[in-house]
């Protein structure tokens, strides 16, 4: 039983990691009051760019960095359009996704079928020798560890730091923040770039560790899942993390169940992760007061300093 369980749990962790990155990044952007629907496109650009960088240089760090920069670069385009030129956030985000799908496919044309062995696993000495827990928690690649760290850091940043408070304030009322003298536009640029970088890493994780290879449109809707997680988790980092694992977990479990031949149509099984995640997050987050306190009131609204 343990022989099945350990690999299953490990796959759950690897399936959830990209969601954690993408959703936390988007959450920071949304906390600042910006809705970026381009997560899917930014992930794909991260995936293809990271894959190219790794196969060209064989350096994992350069690969991850390239994925991050690609995501951030995509989000920079978005930021210039919505913050600089006051474009509608929803339409611009959708365009960014479509653009990312197309551009990544174009760039990645020659990469289909190229092989890469994947980011090496880093076993943490001593801890990884603990039976059962060791292989599950302490024999992963650097990005999995990173996703734990980033969850804690984002949560700490929002709750404990002055910068985090300012970010929340900008999302709560950009007019008030501007009146007090905070640079709303600059803060939103940074939040969007962070979101883009995180989406880039999420995409890089798919092509460098999860698969690891490049296929067109390989994010397969994970960007949209990340967006939904942020809302259903009511903009709270710990719940975003939990939601990502819930989704990743059910995705893997239903695959195993399908493989074992459960007597349920496969289409229904494929729906399960979506249904279960939404239902659980809606149930735990149904406190109206908490929603009002945590949701950024200014989300999606354009802001111009002169008005």
């Amino acid at each position, binding site marked *: 039983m343990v022989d099945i369980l350990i690999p299953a749990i490990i796959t759950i962790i690897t399936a959830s990691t990209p969601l954690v990155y993408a959703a936390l990044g988007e959450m920071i952007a949304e906390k600042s009051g910006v809705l970026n629907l381009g997560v899917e496109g930014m992930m794909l650009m991260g995936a293809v760019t990271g894959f190219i960088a790794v196969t060209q240089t064989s350096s994992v760090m350069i690969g991850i960095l390239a994925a991050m920069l690609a995501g951030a670069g995509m989000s920079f385009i978005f930021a210039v359009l919505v913050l600089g030129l006051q474009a509608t956030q929803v339409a611009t985000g959708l365009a960014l996704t479509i653009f990312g799908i197309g551009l990544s496919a174009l760039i990645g044309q020659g990469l289909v079928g190229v092989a890469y062995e994947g980011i090496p696993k880093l076993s943490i000495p001593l801890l990884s020798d603990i039976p059962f827990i060791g292989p599950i928690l302490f024999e992963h690649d650097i990005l999995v560890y990173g996703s734990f760290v980033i969850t804690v850091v984002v949560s700490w940043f929002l709750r404990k730091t*002055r910068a985090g408070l300012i970010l929340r*304030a900008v999302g709560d009322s950009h*007019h008030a*923040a501007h009146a007090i*003298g905070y640079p709303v536009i600059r803060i939103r640029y940074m939040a969007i770039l962070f979101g883009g970088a995180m989406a880039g890493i999420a995409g890089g994780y798919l092509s460098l560790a999860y698969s690891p290879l490049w296929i067109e449109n390989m994010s397969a809707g994970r960007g949209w899942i990340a967006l939904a997680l942020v809302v259903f988790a009511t903009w709270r980092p710990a719940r975003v993390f939990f939601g990502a694992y819930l989704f990743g977990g059910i995705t893997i479990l239903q695959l195993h169940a399908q493989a074992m031949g459960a007597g349920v149509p496969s289409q229904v099984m494929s729906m399960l992760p979506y249904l279960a995640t939404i239902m659980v997050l809606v149930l735990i987050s149904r406190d109206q007061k908490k929603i009002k306190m945590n949701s950024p009131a200014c989300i999606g609204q354009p802001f111009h300093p002169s008005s």
Partner: protein
Amino acid sequence: MTETNHSRHESLLNLLDMTRSYPGLLANDQINLTLNRGEIHALLGENGAGKSTLVKMIYGVLKPDSGQIFWQGKETSINSPAMARELGIAMVFQHFSLFDSLTVLENIVLGLEAREASDNLEARIVEISAKYGLPLEPDRHVYSLSVGERQRIEIIRCLLQNPKLLIMDEPTSVLTPQEAESLFETLRRLCHEGMSILYISHKLDEIKALCRYATILRHGRVAASVRVQDETANSLAAKMIGEELSAVNMTSENSPGELRFAVDKLDYSATDQFGVGLKQISLQVRGGEILGIAGVAGNGQDELLSVLNGEIKATPPSAIRIDGKDCANQGPDQRRSLGLASIPSERLGHGAVPGLTLNENTLLTAHDRMGLVRMGLIDYQKSEEFGRKVISDFDVRCHGVGAEAGSLSGGNLQKFIVGREINQKPSVLVVSQPTWGVDAGAAQAIRVALRELADSGAAIVVISQDLDELIQISDRLAAICSGALSKALPTAEVTLEQIGLMMSGVQAMDSEASE
């Protein structure tokens, strides 16, 4: 302007020939102002006179086109609010810069520079709030506070910076008389300790009570700089609007007619916790009568308006009657055809759609009563005619009926909305904050129009935070507090103190003023 020159060295702030223009508008034209240490100085003027532009330049939000600022005798250019704070200038804006979902403490931290937000901040807040009579709990969330409490956050934010100059932009417009009086106490104490205060207002009695000097602006220029004690409220008003204010009491002489609008023990429970529920609201208004409802913002005024005009339906059907017809479970359109018109306090987004033209906004409420739609098709000729009549009757300054509602200034849009409803000759009118943000001349015109409508036989309910206005136009006065409506008393017999008590929820003694 003799005062500007003699005391540049002793005074705290000196403005010399400050000029600032916007496209098509000279907002400030060579403004001079001298502010001494430890004095409360009034900046008086109508809406659009240029008060906000001037203080925004002092606070570094706007850059002057030309002119000089002398701070403590030294010429200075103030490029940003941060720099103004550095110099010792603090400002409490009319629209608070607060964040609803954050706590009082977090809001105060955000208003301070990073180095000022030290660990013992909470202790300092408690100390200052005790010292100056500004009670506040640091852990409360802002959305749960009253407007008066919110204002205290802003003031404490400023005081924590130990400013030399405190600018206050129409601070009492949202306060009860009692709250305003305690604010004055705080300001006097601050002034006594050597702080200078620039007090922006258009309420003359406040300025008489509080300020030593006043600089009066009219159409972007200094109309006069005066010692307040040498002036009367009427002479100040005359300098402000350039003509004598006719302070007529507009209460009706006629005896009221038939009962036209009746509400009987109406209950409404708020759907979300940010709203206020209504408890056992009863009121009767006769034709020819104006009922004034006073109250501090956030005590159920918005909910009351929505329940009365049908945006929120109430039960049982007999809880609200227009000319004897039950209508509590009818929507706004059906009530409109029964003769009820309403004017909400929020102009943009509630009273008018900002992105639509004035003509289209006219159609939204007048289509039925004025017959602007025939067989589902809009009669544009007729509706434009109606719109043009509103514009000329109420002196709305705009580019005609094709102008977007959002492009009008607040006061002009208010005149348009009020005119649109009054010109439909409703039999019952419910109006909230009819003259909010409207300059004195236009406000007077709106009040006269409301009075005329009542005199022609309509029943009017005016919900307002402006007590002077209510006393001036209403025949009977009630107050709303925490969703409960006090008994209505004849305006002529009620004292200011009684109104204050009614506004804070203490019922007026029946024996003192029986109907």
